[in-house]
């Protein structure tokens, strides 16, 4: 009898990666949604280094960092594999997964700032998206590094449904069909996968959540301006 616990945050792009992976593989688990202002003792015990979600605990053994967790799940439950069999194809998939993972926080910075800093952040997001659009093989395949959902798609998944929420609130639009035709298709294909479609946080709730976050960020930004 497997004991699998996930500590996450319903609105977090990083938590979602873990949930999607478990759902894709049909693995059952207990989910604990964390209030980050008031972290549970279990979370602090299982992730003392970063004190962050998501954390996966499998038969009492904790693992943190979303993409480390995703690879672990993929290796432990091999059905619906997220990595190809071939070592070179695997290396490419890991490369893009790492690139996306590294750049994700930076891609969200436009949501934290306003004014000139925001303009620079918007440009940086566009630059990163351009690299993915042109270099990750999306022109040849339906997904990044393959024709089925893989590791790098899971890493990028937040762009398909959380990024549009942030865009809506700030008033920008990144992935238009003219500017990013491959990514535009990728978003559609990603959201059409039944497991993904059925495991998205509710749109309105997400908009409400990020609207509040935007207010907090703007307050912090103006605080800096006035000092």
């Amino acid at each position, binding site marked *: 009898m497997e004991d699998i616990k996930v500590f996450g945050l319903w609105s977090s792009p990083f938590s979602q990666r873990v949930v999607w992976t478990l759902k894709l593989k049909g693995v059952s688990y207990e989910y604990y949604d964390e209030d980050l202002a008031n972290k549970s003792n279990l979370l602090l015990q299982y992730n003392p280094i970063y004190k962050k979600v998501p954390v996966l605990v*499998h038969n009492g053994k904790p693992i943190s*960092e979303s993409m*480390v967790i995703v690879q672990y799940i993929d*290796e432990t439950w091999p059905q619906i594999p997220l990595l190809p069999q071939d*070592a070179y194809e*695997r290396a490419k998939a890991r490369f893009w997964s790492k690139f996306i993972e590294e750049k994700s926080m930076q891609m969200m910075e436009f949501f934290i700032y306003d004014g000139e800093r925001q303009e620079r952040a918007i440009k940086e997001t566009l630059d990163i998206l351009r690299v993915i659009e042109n*270099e990750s093989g999306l022109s040849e395949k339906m997904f990044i590094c393959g024709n089925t959902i893989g590791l790098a798609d899971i890493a990028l998944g937040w762009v398909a449904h959380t990024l549009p929420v942030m865009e809506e609130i700030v008033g920008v639009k990144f992935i238009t069909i003219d500017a990013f035709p491959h990514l535009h298709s990728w978003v559609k294909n990603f959201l059409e996968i039944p497991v993904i479609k059925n495991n998205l946080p509710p749109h309105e709730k997400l908009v409400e959540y990020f609207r509040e976050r935007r207010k907090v960020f703007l307050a912090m930004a103006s605080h800096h301006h006035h000092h």
Partner: protein
Amino acid sequence: MATNDLKLLGGWFSPFACRVQIALSIKGLDYENIVENLNPKSDLLLQSNPTYKKIPVLIHGEKTICESAIIVQYIDEVWKNNGTSSILPSNAYDKAIARFWVSYIDDKFFNSLRFGLFAQDDESKKKYFEELEEVLLKLEEVFNELSEGKEFFGGENIGFIDVAFGCYLSWLRVKEKFTGTKKFDEAKNPGLVKWAEAFSAHPAVKGILPETDKLVEYAIALAQRLAAAAAADAAPPK
């Protein structure tokens, strides 16, 4: 002529390139070692790693593999029957733990070391080196837990964390020369002190880590370049 058709585009000064060299050495593989100057970046580098334009790059026949940790995993998987044991642990949980700590080392350890070494003012230096000390305390704990009394993070054999962390030893020796403080505090990091000796003496590692004096020279030149760039940035526009 390398029988496996392997080329490494790297640099003697790069801890990341050293990781790949050690992995190839563990597996007993021949390869052509191409030293990349970086000033300017070669066409080969720009073509084989267009995304990051960084070393190391492993060129295996027609295939190019980038990012040191990914290259090491590639080597471990393709040549899984070479060498006495695999570089990554065999079970999924231990793999996850190894990947977690390598990620931590490349983030927390690497950044506090390099920002400390190249910080422009004393206060920043102090702050980064204090962070470094805390990171090393944590890594001492990790070493004690994972080594289970044996010589390496990987146990009896050098593993993923050993290769990843070990390649920073030369840069820690540079810090020793720059600051006058030992790379590992004998009182606080006795495990790491012994580990560093064992790692440096390992047959797969010998001859790969750069000599400290040569690296110190390189670091001084790099520090000067960075200081000049920082001064240029701070100067008022003409």
